[in-house]
């Protein structure tokens, strides 16, 4: 995809449509997800645990497990530094912490700083992306142009600017892992390499992944890929190694306009919960029933 156009805005007012918020559906407002999410989550956790225990017992009778599954020590090969107890297999879930994410498309100005921060923080190979930013340009003739923001931002690229007179509105949409409550990637993994941390973050066990790429196919949002260097499935973890240290994800920290908000969904006093309660938000591809924990402010219908 060639970058043929430049962005029109030079500040926070990039949406160009003040009433766009009013057009958003009010689903999930203030609840951080569905109102029945805790119950559904409990059921799922129970089913996951039950199936894991049943299969684990069966497996143990056949062959000895690899050491990492039985040990609480962090895996030395884990690029994210995720401790072994992060998985649902051995997690102590008494301390309920659930993280969520909010992207404000009205605030994003497409600086690309989040992209560079993610690549450097997570050593993402060239040609692959754990996060990206899409630019939507609505022309007056009814066409919609979508392209990717370069890491330098359009200002630092050699992409020619768009004539403002041709455009109705334009906006940026950052994309990253949706950390779905009912994650299809987790469901289809045949070897338990895809697992959910106690905080609800989808992770990959680098010692178990066989590189079949079924999870890549199953992710509706295109955030997974096979890392050519490790041969494992790779994805955005919301910088799990950072959030375990009570830091924010690298992209959140790098964003100069607070378009990315990370926080605890279980804490009513968190900034995330307050903003979710105050404004209408929506999720991507809601009809697929994946129940993302990534929410969008002012997401237009054409964003999928």
């Amino acid at each position, binding site marked *: *995809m060639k970058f043929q156009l430049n962005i029109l805005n030079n500040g926070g007012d990039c949406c160009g449509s003040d009433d766009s918020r009013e057009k958003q559906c009010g689903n999930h407002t203030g609840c951080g997800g569905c109102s029945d999410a805790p119950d559904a989550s409990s059921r799922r956790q129970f089913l*996951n645990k039950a*199936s*894991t225990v*049943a*299969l*684990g017992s069966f*497996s143990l009778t*056949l*062959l000895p*497990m690899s050491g990492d599954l039985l040990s609480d020590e962090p895996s030395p090969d884990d690029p994210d530094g995720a401790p072994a107890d992060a998985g649902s297999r051995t997690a102590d879930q008494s301390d309920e912490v659930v993280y969520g994410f909010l992207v404000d498309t009205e605030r994003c100005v497409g600086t690309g700083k989040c992209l560079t921060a993610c690549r450097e923080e997570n050593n993402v190979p060239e*040609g*692959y*992306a754990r996060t*990206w930013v*899409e630019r939507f340009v609505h022309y007056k003739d*009814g*066409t*919609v*142009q*979508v*392209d*990717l923001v370069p890491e330098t931002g359009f200002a630092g690229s050699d992409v020619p600017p768009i004539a403002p007179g041709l455009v109705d509105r334009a906006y940026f949409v950052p*994309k990253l892992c949706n950390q779905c409550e009912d994650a*299809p990637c*987790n*469901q*289809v*993994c*045949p*070897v*338990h*390499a895809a697992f959910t941390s106690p905080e609800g973050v989808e992770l990959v066990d680098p010692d*178990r*992944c*066989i*590189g*079949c*790429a*079924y999870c*890549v*196919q*199953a*992710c*509706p*949002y*295109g*955030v*997974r*890929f*096979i890392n050519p260097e490790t*041969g*494992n499935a790779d994805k955005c973890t919301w910088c799990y190694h950072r959030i375990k240290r009570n830091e924010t994800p690298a992209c959140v920290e790098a964003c100069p306009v607070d378009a990315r908000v990370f926080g605890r969904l279980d804490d009513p006093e968190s900034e995330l919960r307050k903003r979710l309660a105050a404004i209408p938000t929506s999720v991507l591809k809601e009809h*697929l029933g994946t129940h993302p924990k990534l929410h969008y402010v002012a997401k237009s219908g*054409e964003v*999928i």
Partner: protein
Amino acid sequence: MHASSFVFPNDPHVPWSIMIVLYPYITGLVAGAFVVSALYHVFHQDVLKPVARLALVTALCFCVFATLPLLLHLHHPERAFNIMITPSATSAMSGFGIIYNVYMLLLVVEVWLVFRPDIVALAKTTNGWPGMVYRLLSLGDREITKESRAVDEWLIRALAIGGIPAACVLHGYVGFLFGAVKANPWWSTALMPVIFLASAVVSGIAALIALYLFFCWRRKITPDADCVRAMSRYLWVSLTIAVSLEMLELVHMAYEAGAEWHAISTLLTERLAISYGVVQVLIGSVCPFLLLLLAVRPRLNPRWLTGLSGIASVLVLVQVFAMRWNVVVGGQMLSKSFRGFVEYPLHIGGREGLIAAAVILALPFVALIFASRLLPLWESGDKHVLSSKPFQPANTGNSLTTGTLTSVTNQQRTMFNEEDTADTDAFNYGAVMRNEHV
């Protein structure tokens, strides 16, 4: 509203290569060939007797190599056994270990039981390393009694009956792998397992017609016209069902015209115009449909029959491959942004390249030729009687008859005598064919 082309940044790296095209193609051939053998062993379609053994051995030869493309595809093949050691109950893919192994075991046992009298006889009369192989395969048995053969017959029939649902599961689950991916609208349909199953039967019958005609040509034998005609009829019926299901899926998508239909229609008309429109539909479906319609006419000259059926079979094999290609590769060409398409770069070399794919596809045929030399695929009708009906010794005594042993000795000579193998074998087989069908 018109939208420009845009793909998500990870989508250009098409993760499932031609190896994942080969896997359902090979397992489809396994399932289809087994269905043909079951038609003979279970449903007593005696007209299929000339290909009954070929069908079973073909299924085994393809099944042996079915996992090879998967191993070449996995980025961590050294961890392949994780899928059997620590399977995830929620993954459709994790059923692979159980399904494949059960089916493989079933095939091995059934083939062994069908050929057991021949193996035992050959073990007694063959020297050198071939004799060692036969003695090993006979598992120490030196005599086939009437009673033991009766047990064999019961087991063969039971395995054939059990093998039909096993074959359906083996291939239906491959279709389910694709059909259950809700992220991909080109795959996500409940019809997918049924379509895969129907096309598996189609490919299995077509492969057997082609193989049977090839072996007859190689042995300078006139093919059994009744058998070819019967298989052509089965092929025509199954092809009609398979293509109808494929078209039903397409028409249903088009008629519903959901949110993703625009992207799918563009995929079919622009990106898959050749492989879908021309190869799969026109050359692979319409042409063989018409050819088979001509071929199955009762009074058709046998030469025309074999010619038309042979061409139709090869076209059908191409159709099924194209169908697998269009599903596996076509589905990945559609970006999850539904605003653009990516290209699949088919490399010539490399682990997942064209050469590797060609070698994998050739290996089952090499194995089949080897098996045809090891086991009497083309033995006389007596053997077929043995394999499906109560044991009827030609002479007194409980062991195999002298006559059978003589024929086995001839078989053995033709197998391991490199000088005049083809001529002797062709002569023997020709005599058998004349006895059976003239």
